[in-house]
């Protein structure tokens, strides 16, 4: 993983210095952030989990779970969420890798400027991109004849457009670390550009791709603004379902169940990513 060497470079506190009266100070320093985390994140999360076990009819039971899991809408939303996230991530990886390759290795004027713009792009709100796409492809947009923006494909396009820079950022950093002498050695050994990309650049970029890809996957699973703004009626993802149940149907236990499922998927995927990346020895 790209960030790991930096983490390892942080000197660890030597054991003897922790003894004596100053021994408790590290724990004390950890207390405020832990308290803040508990107050603002863990406690509300716990409330959500508790609510998900309290059906409107009173008492504590797994009824809300049974109801939600049995509903066609939930299973449909789960499937939509997962395939949209996976497809968006795949699209971002391919597009981001190609764009980062061009910016890093094809000398053209303004390559630095483009790389800077990527940084700015990351700070844009996600719905802004959707709004921009609406202006072009929407029913009243410049090219209004395409009606695909309200389909899952519109959401996919918007997510790929918005999240690709999240893949490019770590890739550009990885490429700037790449030793150009390696590329030259490969070239003088008789390798053309496609082979150099496949055999030299891609293996070096794998940790960055894994980092960027897992980030995008988790962000896509939880994406709300893009789906809302495309106005795609048939596209209901888990966050949309939470919104619908809580705000429109006032079914709080149901909304909480969906939210818990969403959190579990995110945490599960993150855990899977950590295991895989550690296996890969990165």
């Amino acid at each position: 993983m790209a960030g790991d060497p930096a983490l390892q470079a942080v000197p660890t506190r030597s054991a003897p210095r922790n003894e004596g009266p100053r021994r408790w100070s590290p724990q004390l320093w950890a207390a405020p952030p832990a308290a803040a985390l508990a107050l603002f994140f863990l406690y509300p999360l716990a409330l959500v989990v508790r609510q998900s076990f309290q059906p409107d009819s009173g008492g504590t039971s797994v009824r809300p779970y049974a109801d939600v899991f049995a509903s066609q809408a939930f299973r449909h939303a789960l499937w939509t969420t997962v395939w949209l996230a996976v497809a968006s991530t795949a699209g971002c990886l391919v597009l981001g890798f190609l764009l980062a390759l061009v910016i890093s290795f094809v000398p053209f004027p303004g390559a630095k400027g483009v790389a800077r713009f990527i940084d700015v792009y990351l700070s844009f709100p996600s719905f802004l991109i959707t709004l921009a796409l609406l202006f072009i492809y929407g029913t009243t947009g410049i090219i209004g004849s395409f009606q695909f923006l309200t389909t899952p494909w519109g959401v996919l396009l918007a997510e790929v457009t918005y999240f690709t820079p999240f893949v490019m950022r770590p890739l550009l950093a990885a490429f700037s670390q790449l030793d150009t002498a390696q590329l030259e050695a490969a070239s003088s050994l008789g390798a053309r550009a496609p082979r150099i990309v496949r055999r030299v650049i891609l293996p070096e970029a794998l940790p960055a791709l894994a980092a960027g890809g897992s980030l995008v996957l988790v962000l896509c699973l939880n994406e709300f603004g893009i789906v809302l703004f495309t106005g795609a009626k048939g596209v209901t993802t888990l966050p949309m379902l939470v919104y619908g149940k809580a705000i429109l149907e006032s079914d709080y236990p149901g909304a909480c169940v969906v939210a818990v499922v969403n959190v579990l998927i995110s945490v599960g995927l993150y855990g899977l990513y950590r295991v895989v990346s550690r296996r890969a020895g990165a």
Partner: protein
Amino acid sequence: MSIRFDSVTVAYDGNVGSLALDALDLTVEPGEVMALLGPSGSGKTTALRAVAGFVRPVSGRVLLGGRDVTDLPPYRRGIGMVVQQYALFPHLRVDENVAFGLRARRTPRGEIRQRVAEALEMTGMAAYARRYPRELSGGQQQRVAIARALAIRPRVLLLDEPLSALDAQLRSGMLAELARLHRELPDVSMLYVTHDQVEALTLADRIAVMDKARLRACGTPRELYRAPTDAFTASFVGGANLLPVTVGPGGVSFAGAELKVETGDVVAGARATLCVRPHLVGLGAGPNQLVGVVREIQWRGATHRLYVEVDGHAVMADLRELRDPPAHGESVSLHFAAEDAVLLPAGVVGDGR
């Protein structure tokens, strides 16, 4: 295969105002080791990169074996290249690194295996075939890089400061290895870029001395060392005392002293530079005597180096370890044999250290 530079000019970023290489004319004969020797920024690496195809000359041509390759991309030139920082592929094992060029050329599998083994055998790395580069020392990595370059059986091998990243002891060992490889591969022409005169003198059949993007001198190590033609070459190939002298009949005068040296066809009365190697300067009275004051003494184990000020000029003398070295400020006599001095027609450059 011969390498020929035909007035090759390379500019930084295509800017003709600042030249990285100024109209280089040089031919490396088939099977010859040519060292490009010069300080950093002298254009020697640029010349090598022009042969490899990584820089495009703004004018002039590069020929390999009589064929114009100026417009060929690097992957079609069939050249082996070894660089200072090894540039091994970190995610590939040693044998996969060596096989890289053969795979790129779509060599049949069986032949790849055989040639990889052969190349690793030749560089003494056969026992490390299944290691990763990060598990090897610097010297071992450089051997792998050489094996990788040799596996494609190039007829031209480019070496860009290949020993600069190694420590002194390893360097002399690798120097002997490279000399052995050259004997075992008599058909391979080598272009060896270095700033280290010892490497150039040891390994090269001929040395091309470069400075400020230009070729200063080219000749066998013996020629350049014994009879340098200009002050820059004299001081860069071996240390040299460069003394400003006035040519007289049958000798030169320096700091009021008459020195008997071969003046060749330099006319009397001309100003010139006399080059005397420090290790050929003796202490005490003798022919061609210079008297001066000891300004510095450096004990180097086997030798003493004296800096003697003669009429405002520092004269270096490398003497076999002295039992009773002179003291600072002491007045001493130095001498040298007439045949050990070379008269350079050019003026003095720098102070010759």
